């Protein structure tokens, strides 16, 4: 995470406003292990039935499981449905 982005994230926390309003951080929500909603993403890097990889500003998010479908994808958010087993965050090099 860049220093400026880090500062914006902290400022948002202090001001008690949504983090993604000031920073470029992604927001991840899960509905059980069946649905993942990721906001503030930068696109897909891998889409397979067993794995979906999503690029964000600082990290790549790998979702592993089975029967994956992308319910919706647009500039703002991506919704992935399926049986989720694992979510891995990896920092960009």
């Amino acid at each position, binding site marked *: 995470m860049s220093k400026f982005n880090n500062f914006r994230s902290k400022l948002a926390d202090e001001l008690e406003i949504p983090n993604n309003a000031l920073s470029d951080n992604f927001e991840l929500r899960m509905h059980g292990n069946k649905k993942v909603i990721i906001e503030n993403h930068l*696109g*897909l*890097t*891998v*889409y*397979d*039935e067993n794995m979906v990889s999503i690029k964000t500003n600082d990290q790549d998010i790998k979702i592993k499981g089975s029967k*994956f*479908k*992308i*319910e*919706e*994808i*647009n*500039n703002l958010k991506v919704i992935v449905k399926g049986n989720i087993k694992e979510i891995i965050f990896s920092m960009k090099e």
Partner: protein
Amino acid sequence: MLIFKLMYLIRGYVVIRTDDKNAEKVLNILRRRNIAVWDVEKKGKGIKFKISYEDYIKNSNLINEIVNPVIKRGAMLKLNKVKFRKGFSIGLLILIISLYLLTSMIWDVEVVGTNQTNTNEILGLLEENKIKIPVSISRIETKQLETLIYNNFEYKFVDVFVEGSKLIIFVREREPEPAEIKSNEPSSIISVKNAIINKVIAKSGQPVVKEGDVVYEGQTLIMGIVKNKNSDEFMMVPSDGIIYGKTYYNFEMKEEKIRSVNMSTNKSKTVYYLKLNENSIKIIGDKDPYERYDYRESVIKVPFVSNITDISFLKGVYYEEEIKKIEIDKQTAQNKMKVAMYDELLERCDDDSRILKSNINFSEDDEFYYLIAQIEVIEDIGEKIRIFPIEEEQTDETKED
């Protein structure tokens, strides 16, 4: 998401399939172009997804370059097709208009509850009031029609309602009222039952019976012919009074000890018929599927179609029944016979009658319970009848004079 999908089902969407191994790239390109993509599924090596028809039109060059659209769906797209099929569109429009016109008119008038002569008279009255068939439903004011018919005919009850494309006029004719004897008309009082006179209260007229007399049905109790005090002539007067008499009612009843009753087995089978006018054609199910059954049927009207035509469906249900023998206990049988006896007594007596004595005996044999009873009742046994003066025939002597 459901609302979103429903919205695009109306506005139109395009299903796209790509066999490109780098399907992610396609999705990212579309995303960068601000194109919303949904229902992305893996299909073989490639993917299948949906985009809106608007986005497809805007970016058709790009999309056709990278992928192949498979199907275009949505209500708006269908409407666009209709634009080119003018004949079909005009036909459809004419059909809708004619259906609307046909269903908003009354094509038949049915009069229920009276004979053909009166029916023709009612139809004539409607025509006089400018209601000629066919007529628009909106022109029919049912309450106004009811008043009109009620005022012009002597009906007890009139109800007018519209059912589909039919105007139904339901009437109930007045029953002729029994002729009443006016209070100033000469009359006598006669007995309507065989009885023993208990009390005679004569207000006017000449009583011809006294307490303890045995009278028979039709016998005069109070005579409306009395002698004039001032002359030897007789005159006719209206009779009035109450004559109480003791009457005896005998009852003999029997009730089975073991009764056969039809009991439902909770099994049923349904049969459907297509009804055309008065004929019905069987569609599904069997006729008479059980040896013993209770059959009930109901008409299923097809919305719109049944209103215009006489086509409807008939649903018949056969409920299986079996005969079961039930033993009736003594107390129940006796109570039942007693109730039946008093019901019958109430029908045969007036409301103000009084039971003086009742003698009820029960007995039984192998098959039946029996009731033998005699009820002694005090009741008003008189009935007024009108009397008329008889014109005397002229004697031969008078003729000669």
